[in-house]
Every structure is written in structure tokens, then in C-alpha cells.
């Protein structure tokens, strides 16, 4: 133990007095000219600081959007997390696992959130449900969701594809193969329904003529299956999504539409406007 400390101190003194560089070595030598700290050893490693969980990281703050406070002067810091056994790097805003990239810099991504809420209501009278009735006559309560052109780093609302965002559509800037996802968060309640009583319909529509005519690009119905029988049940926002991998020409427009159908006595739903719940994500594949 003593020997080790002396070795350390000696080399520190040596390094410091010559060039303000630090060499840690049992075998002497001099630090590399470009090294501020040079640890020379072929059989012993370097241990940096470590912690047990992400919750113990510096600047962790569950109350802020991205869970970490910003501190530009700490950019480049390294810290080991024992929970998932890897180093994390701090980019000035968040801690990122060393084996991953920060999503904000993904050059193939555009994500835009809802700019307002739409409402859906179904009422049953004498066994006839208004939503069922309109569906019987070939219609439903489908509504197009308005979109926001807001970008926000901590919310991962990025526009690295340089898409143009209209009031309720986005414009694909260049022809290519895209993975497009539409996600809608629904909140609301239904009373006196049984089991499989709520289904969420999410549409991605496409227009190839600057919005004059629209057709369905992808559609999915998500059943909130067995709502009262699966133990956790009805509370909270529910997420429904549809995705499609498709080639799109330049200037095609994409919009997000949704509908709700229930057979319960009365139900009323609206889409969440939170960026985590309702958004269109466009990923360019090639």
C-alpha cells in the first residue's frame, strides 16, 4: 500500500514539475506529449466513479422533462452505472448509455406532436348506440388531429428531416423509404360496458396532391381488451398506434386521424395533447 502511494506521488511530482502533465507509471518514462493524464500499465486498469442506479446520477431530476438538469460545464463526464453494468456519458443535457447514441441527433427522424384535442362521445339509448348507428350507415366519428410544428430537445420533438408542418399534416421533403408511425393517447371513461367495450381506431392518411384528396396509408384498431377483467383496468391514458413502412414521393402529405367506438351506456373520450401520447413519427430508412 505504502509503496503504491509513493510511486504515485513520485510520478505525480515528476510529471507536474516538468510539464504540468501527469504520468502514473511503475516503470518511469514520460507522459505522451498530448496526454494530460497518462496511465501506463499493461496489467492494471483505471476505475472511474460508479453508482448504483440512474436515480443517483448527478443532476438527476425526475421533475424535469428529460429527467436530468442541464449543465454545459459537465459535458463529457463519465460515470459507471452498476445496475446495467456500463458507463454513461453526459452530453450537457442528459446521461446517455455509452453503448447508445442520443436520440436528439438521429439525422433520420422527425417527430411532431398534437396541437389540440378532439372529443369522441358515444351514448346508448334503448340498446341502440349512437356510434354503432353511425357505423351502420357507413360513417364513424373519425376526426383529424391538429399538429404542432414545435421542436423541443428535451421532449425529443425533432425535425432532422426538415419536414414542413401544416395545421394538421406534415410534408415529406424527399422521396424515400419511410417508417411512419401515428400514435394517439386517449383519455376518458366509459360507464356500464362489459369487457371488450372500447376500441381505438387510428388512421394515417396520405395525400399526393397537396391536400386535395386523401387516402388511407395505414389503419389499426386497438381493443382495450377485457378491460374490466385484466386486473389493472381502465384508469389513465391509453395509447393506440399504427405504423407503416412505405415508399413516399416528395411533397406527399401525412396526417393523423382517430376514432373511438364503444358499446357502453355512455362514453366520452378525447385525445391527449401531451407529446409522449399523441404524435406522428417519421423515420427515413433510405
Amino acid at each position, binding site marked *: 500500500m505504502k509503496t503504491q502511494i509513493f510511486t504515485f506521488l513520485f510520478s505525480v511530482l515528476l510529471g507536474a514539475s516538468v510539464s504540468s502533465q501527469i504520468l502514473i507509471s511503475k516503470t518511469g518514462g514520460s507522459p505522451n506529449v498530448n496526454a*494530460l493524464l497518462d496511465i501506463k500499465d499493461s496489467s492494471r*486498469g483505471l476505475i472511474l466513479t460508479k453508482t448504483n442506479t440512474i436515480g443517483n446520477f448527478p443532476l438527476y431530476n*425526475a421533475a424535469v422533462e428529460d429527467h436530468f438538469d442541464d449543465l454545459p460545464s459537465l459535458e463529457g463526464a463519465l460515470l459507471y452505472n452498476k445496475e446495467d453494468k456500463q458507463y454513461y456519458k453526459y452530453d450537457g443535457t442528459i446521461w446517455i448509455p455509452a453503448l447508445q447514441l442520443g436520440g436528439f441527433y438521429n439525422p433520420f427522424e422527425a417527430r411532431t406532436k398534437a396541437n389540440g384535442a378532439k372529443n369522441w362521445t358515444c351514448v346508448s339509448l334503448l340498446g341502440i348506440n349512437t356510434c354503432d348507428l353511425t357505423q351502420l350507415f357507413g360513417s364513424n366519428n373519425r376526426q383529424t388531429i391538429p399538429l404542432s410544428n414545435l421542436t423541443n430537445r428535451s421532449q425529443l420533438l425533432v425535425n432532422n428531416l426538415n419536414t414542413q408542418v401544416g395545421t394538421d399534416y406534415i410534408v415529406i421533403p424527399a422521396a424515400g423509404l419511410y417508417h411512419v408511425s401515428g*400514435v394517439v393517447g386517449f383519455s376518458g371513461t366509459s360507464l356500464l360496458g362489459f369487457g371488450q367495450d372500447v376500441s381505438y381506431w387510428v388512421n394515417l392518411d396520405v395525400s399526393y396532391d397537396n391536400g386535395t384528396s386523401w387516402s388511407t396509408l395505414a389503419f389499426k384498431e386497438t381493443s382495450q381488451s*377485457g378491460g374490466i377483467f385484466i386486473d389493472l383496468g381502465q384508469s389513465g391514458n391509453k395509447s393506440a398506434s399504427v405504423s407503416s413502412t412505405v415508399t413516399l414521393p416528395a411533397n406527399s402529405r401525412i396526417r393523423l386521424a382517430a376514432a373511438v367506438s364503444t358499446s357502453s351506456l355512455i362514453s366520452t373520450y378525447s385525445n391527449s395533447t401531451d407529446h409522449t401520447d399523441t404524435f406522428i413519427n417519421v423515420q427515413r430508412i433510405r
Partner: protein
Amino acid sequence: MKKYILLSSILGGCLFNAQVIMGGANVTSPYTQLELQNTTGQKVLIQPAANNSTTLPKYNAAQPDSYDDDPTMEAMLMYDKNTSVSKVYDGSTWKQAFIPQGKATTWTRARIEPSSVACLSFLCTSGNLPLSIPNNSNQFSDYLSVFRPADTFRIRQKGLYRINFNVLFNGANIGFAGVKVNIAIAVNGEQKAYMSANAAFISSNSFSASADTVLFLDVNNDVNFRVNINTPGLSIAAFTFGGTPDSSISLERIL
């Protein structure tokens, strides 16, 4: 004079556990133990370098993973000259510490372990799907480092994730009348999203189903998958899931 300050701060560091700065004089953040201050990028840290993977500390050819276990050495960094990568010791073995630029692998695929669901009329039991990531498998890996035994994914990085399940199951049923598999995705214990799939008939009493969705998840979200089934026309049914390579849950980070 500067050198003395530097020196004393290092000595201070040794003796009093203070913050240590090299290449500068001012502490810029309260969160560092050791800081190499050099804004031009011309002065760096060189970590110790081993000649190859057999000269890394704790090497033991007799171990299946080639290294002895030592939790006290966890987080050690060392450069492997043979493979030209920085490696980190995780308490049991050495693995690559950082990624080449733009080369992150962004998925986790876990095996669904055997479990079962029973139904009496439309009342079905439900439970978290048990998951595992078998060692040394080319089908199952946890590149997102999110898996927590035995049924949870704990999210490390905020973002948009594509979630997919494939499941092969067997039913002690009396006829096949359009069985539907439903998986509820529970986030921090609250049902957030649903994946439903009609089961395809494979062979006698054997079916498969798959579905996908995308979901925005946050740091430290715990994600579980709760399964149940719809069995129209059946009054009593029991199904066993998983336990084969066909049955898996995958999670891919899109953004």
C-alpha cells in the same frame, strides 16, 4: 506558483478526498471527482493498455467467460491493443465499453418463458409474461441493457420504442374458434397500450400470434407485458405460452 497549486490540489485530493483538477485551476462543477480541464482537446487521458485480451486483469482461461469474478474491480477501464477498443470490466468479465460512431445497436429481444392462461367463459386469468435473455444466444440480446429479471424492461433512455411480440402457444381447447391473443403493456404498473393478434392455426392445438406497436417511454419506466386471451365460443380453455425460441418480445429504440 501554478504548479504548486496544482500539486497541492492533487495532494489534497489524496489526503482529503477533494475534487481534483488537472490542466486548470477552477472547479467548474460540483459533480466531478477528477476533471481533466483542457478545452482545446489537445491534452487527453490515456488509459492503461493491455496487449490483448489474455493480459487483461483477472484473465483465467479455465473460466467460461475467460475471466474471474471480482465485484470490487467493477467499472475498471482498460484499452485492448489487439482489438483496438476500450473495455470495461463489469464485475465478471470484460466487454466493449464504447461504440464506434453511429454504430449503436438499438434493440433488445427477450424469450418468453413458459406460462399459462386459463379461461372460464370470458373470464380469463392474466399475468406478466415471464422473460429471459439466454446467454450466448444469437437470437436474444439486450443491447439496450433494459432487462431486469424476470419480467421487466427498465428503460435507460427516453425515446420512441417499437414493441413487438411473437408467441407460440398450445391450448387444451375443444375446437378453434378464432382465438385472439391480447397483450397489455403496463408502464410503471398502469396499462398503457394494447397489442392484439388473431392466432394462426399451426397444428393440433398449436397456434401462433404476433403484433406490434410503438410507444414513447421515459427514463426509469418499468415495462411489463400482461397477457390474456379471447375465446369466443369456448366455455373452458387453458393455454400454455412460451418456452420456445418462437416466443419472444422485442423492443427497438427508434428515436
